[in-house]
C-alpha cells in the first residue's frame, strides 16, 4: 500500500507515457493497414485517408472503445483476488505496455508481421500467469479472446463473400451496371452507417455517460444512417459516365460509383479500428489509474475516466500525423489490385466484424480480419491473384507474438518488482 501512496503519481505519469507511445505506434503503423485498402484502390488519396483516419479513429476510440478497454483492464486478470497486493497489478500492466511497445518496435524494424492486440494480450497473460499465479488469469475469457482471433477472419471472410456476391448479382451481372450501381450503392451506404451507429449506441456510449434504450438506439441509428445515405446520394449525383475511360475498360464508370461508396466504408473501417485497437494502448493504463485513484483498492466495477480514451485517441492521431503518411503510402502502392467494388466489400465486412467484436469487448486484430475479408472476396471470384502464403504468415505471427510479448512482460514485471519492492 505504501508503494502506491509514495509513487502513485509517478506510476500514472509513466503509464500515460507508455500508453501514449503505444497509441502512437498504433496510429503510425496499424492504421495504415486499416486504410491502405482505400488508398490502394485509389478511392482516397493518402492525405484524404489520413484526415478521415484522424477523425474516425478518434471518434471510434472515444465513442466505442470502452468495452475492449474494459476487457484489457479487468477482463483477463481476476482483479478481486488481487486485492491483497494491488501494486503487482500496477507493475504488471506497466511491464505489459513496455513489453508490447518494445516488441512492436523490434518486429517492425525486422519487418515481421505482428499484431498489437496479440502482443498486449500475450504480455498480460504472461505476467499474470508467471509473475502472480496461474489461477489469477481468467482462462475462460482468455480462451474466448483466442477463439475470436480465429473466428473474426472467418466471419469477415464469410460476410465479404456474400457482400460481393450481392454486388455481382445486383450490379455487375446486369444489363445496366452503371444505373444499377447508382440505384443500389446508397443501400450499402445505409448498411455501413447503420452497423456502426447501432453498435455505438447500444454498446459504446455508456462509457461517455449516455444511456439509451434499445428502441431509442434503433430509432436514432436509422435516422443517422438515413442522413448518411442522403449525403451519399448527393455525392453520387456528381458521378457521370466517363465514355472515354469506358471505351478502354467498360466498367470504369461503375468503379467510380464504388469509389464514392468506399469513402464511407473507409470511415467505418477507421471507426472500427479506433474502437478496438485503442484499447491495447489505454487498457493497461486505465487499470493503473484505477488502482492509484482508489488508493490501492481494486474495484472491478469502477468507471473508467473518459480522458483515458481521449489520450489513446490523441496518441493515434499524433502517430498518424508523424508516420502514418509514409506507411500508408507504402501499403497503398502495394495494394493496387483491389478495385473499389472489391475494396468496399472487404472493408464493410471487416469493419462490421471489428465493430461487433468491439461491442462484445473482444480485442481482435484488424489486419487479420481485413485479410480474412479480402480472401472472402477472392473466394467469390472477385480478385485476380491472391497470395495464400499469407495465411501461414498470420499463423506464424500468432505463434511468435504471444510468447514474445509474454516473455518480455515477465522480465519487466520482475524488474519493476525488484526496483519498487
Amino acid at each position, binding site marked *: 500500500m505504501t508503494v502506491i501512496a509514495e509513487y502513485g503519481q509517478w506510476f500514472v505519469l509513466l503509464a500515460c507515457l507508455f500508453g501514449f507511445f503505444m497509441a502512437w505506434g498504433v496510429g503510425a503503423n496499424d492504421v495504415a493497414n486499416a486504410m491502405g485498402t482505400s488508398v490502394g484502390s485509389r478511392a482516397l488519396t493518402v492525405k484524404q485517408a489520413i484526415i478521415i483516419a484522424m477523425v474516425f479513429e478518434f471518434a471510434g476510440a472515444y465513442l466505442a472503445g470502452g468495452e475492449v478497454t474494459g476487457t484489457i483492464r479487468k477482463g483477463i486478470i481476476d482483479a478481486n483476488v488481487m486485492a491483497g497486493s494491488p501494486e503487482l497489478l500496477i507493475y504488471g500492466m506497466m511491464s505489459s505496455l513496455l513489453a508490447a511497445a518494445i516488441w512492436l518496435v523490434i518486429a517492425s524494424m525486422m519487418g515481421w508481421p505482428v499484431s498489437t492486440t496479440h502482443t498486449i494480450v500475450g504480455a498480460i497473460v504472461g505476467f499474470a500467469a508467471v509473475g502472480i499465479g496461474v489461477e489469477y488469469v481468467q482462462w475462460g475469457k482468455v480462451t474466448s479472446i483466442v477463439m475470436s482471433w480465429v473466428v473474426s477472419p472467418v466471419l469477415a471472410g464469410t460476410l465479404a463473400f456474400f457482400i460481393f456476391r450481392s454486388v455481382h448479382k445486383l450490379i455487375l451481372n446486369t444489363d445496366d451496371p452503371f444505373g444499377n450501381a447508382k440505384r443500389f450503392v446508397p443501400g450499402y451506404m445505409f448498411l455501413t452507417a447503420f452497423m456502426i451507429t447501432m453498435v455505438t449506441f447500444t454498446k459504446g456510449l455508456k462509457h461517455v455517460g449516455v444511456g439509451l434504450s434499445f428502441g431509442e438506439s434503433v430509432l436514432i441509428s436509422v435516422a443517422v444512417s438515413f442522413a448518411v445515405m442522403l449525403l451519399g446520394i448527393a455525392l453520387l449525383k456528381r458521378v457521370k459516365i466517363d465514355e472515354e475511360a469506358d471505351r478502354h475498360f467498360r466498367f470504369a464508370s461503375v468503379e467510380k460509383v464504388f469509389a464514392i461508396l468506399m469513402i464511407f466504408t473507409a470511415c467505418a473501417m477507421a471507426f472500427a479500428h479506433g474502437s478496438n485497437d485503442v484499447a491495447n494502448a489505454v487498457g493497461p493504463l486505465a487499470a493503473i489509474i484505477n488502482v492509484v485513484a482508489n488508493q490501492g483498492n481494486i474495484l472491478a466495477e469502477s468507471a473508467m475516466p473518459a480522458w483515458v480514451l481521449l489520450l489513446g485517441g490523441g496518441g493515434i492521431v499524433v502517430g498518424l500525423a508523424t508516420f502514418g503518411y509514409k506507411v500508408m503510402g507504402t501499403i497503398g502502392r502495394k495494394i493496387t489490385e483491389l478495385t473499389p467494388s472489391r475494396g468496399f466489400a472487404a472493408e464493410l465486412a471487416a469493419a462490421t466484424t471489428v465493430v461487433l467484436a468491439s461491442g462484445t469487448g473482444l480485442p481482435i486484430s484488424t489486419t487479420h480480419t481485413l485479410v480474412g475479408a479480402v480472401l472472402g472476396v477472392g473466394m467469390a471470384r472477385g480478385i485476380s491473384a491472391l*497470395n495464400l502464403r499469407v495465411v501461414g504468415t498470420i499463423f506464424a505471427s500468432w505463434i511468435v507474438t504471444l510468447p514474445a510479448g509474454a516473455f518480455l512482460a515477465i522480465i519487466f514485471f520482475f524488474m519493476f518488482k525488484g526496483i519498487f519492492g
Partner: protein
Amino acid sequence: MAADSPLMALFGRSPVKPMQEHMQKAHACVVRLIDFYDVAATGDYQAAEAIRQDIAKLEGEADRMKKDIRMHLPNSLFMPVPRSDLLELLTHQDKLANRAKDIAGVMLGREMTIPNPIQPLMREYLESSINTSQKAADALAELDELFETGFSSREIKLVSGLLNDLDDQEHRADELEIRVRRALRAVEKDYPPIDVMFLYRVIELIGDLADVAQRVGSRLQILLAR
C-alpha cells in the same frame, strides 16, 4: 517503422493486364505479315528483310513478356481461374508470334516469288488468317471485363459470341486455303518444283496461324467454362 504488413503480401500481381498486353504484342507480330507479304510479292527482298527483322523483334518482346508472366505466377497464387489454364492460354498466344516469324522466315529464306495468277487469292487468304488472329485478340480484350464482373453470365455470353465469330473466321480461312491450294495446283507445272513445294509449305503455315488463333479462343473458352 513500416513492418511488412500481411495485407501487402496478400496481393499477388494480377496476370490480367500482362496477358492482354502479351496478346496485343503477339497480334502486332501477325499484323506485320501483310506488309511483309506486299513487299515480298514485288520481289524486293531487301525491304522485306527489314520487315522480317521487325517481326522478329516483336516476337522477341512477346517472348520476354511470356517469361515474365510465368515468373510472376507461382503456384501459391489463388486465382478465380486455374493457373494451368491461364498458362496454356499464354502458350498459345505466344505461338501466334512464332508462326508469324516462321512464315516470314520461310518466304525470306527462299526469296520466294508468288506466281501472278494466285497473288490476289494468296493475299486474301493471308488477310483472312490475320483476321482470325484479330478475332482472338478481340475476345482476349474482354479478359479484364471477365475478371471485373467475377465471370458473370452476361459477360461470358458476350465472350462466347466473340469466340463464335472467331470460329467462323477460322472456317473462312480454311475454305480459302483449299481454294489457294487448288489454284496453285492448276499452275504448279509452270514453276520450279522446289519453289512450289515451299509455297505449299507457306500456305500450310498460314493455315496453321489461323489454327493457332482458334486454339487461343478455345483455351479462353476453357477458362470460362466452370
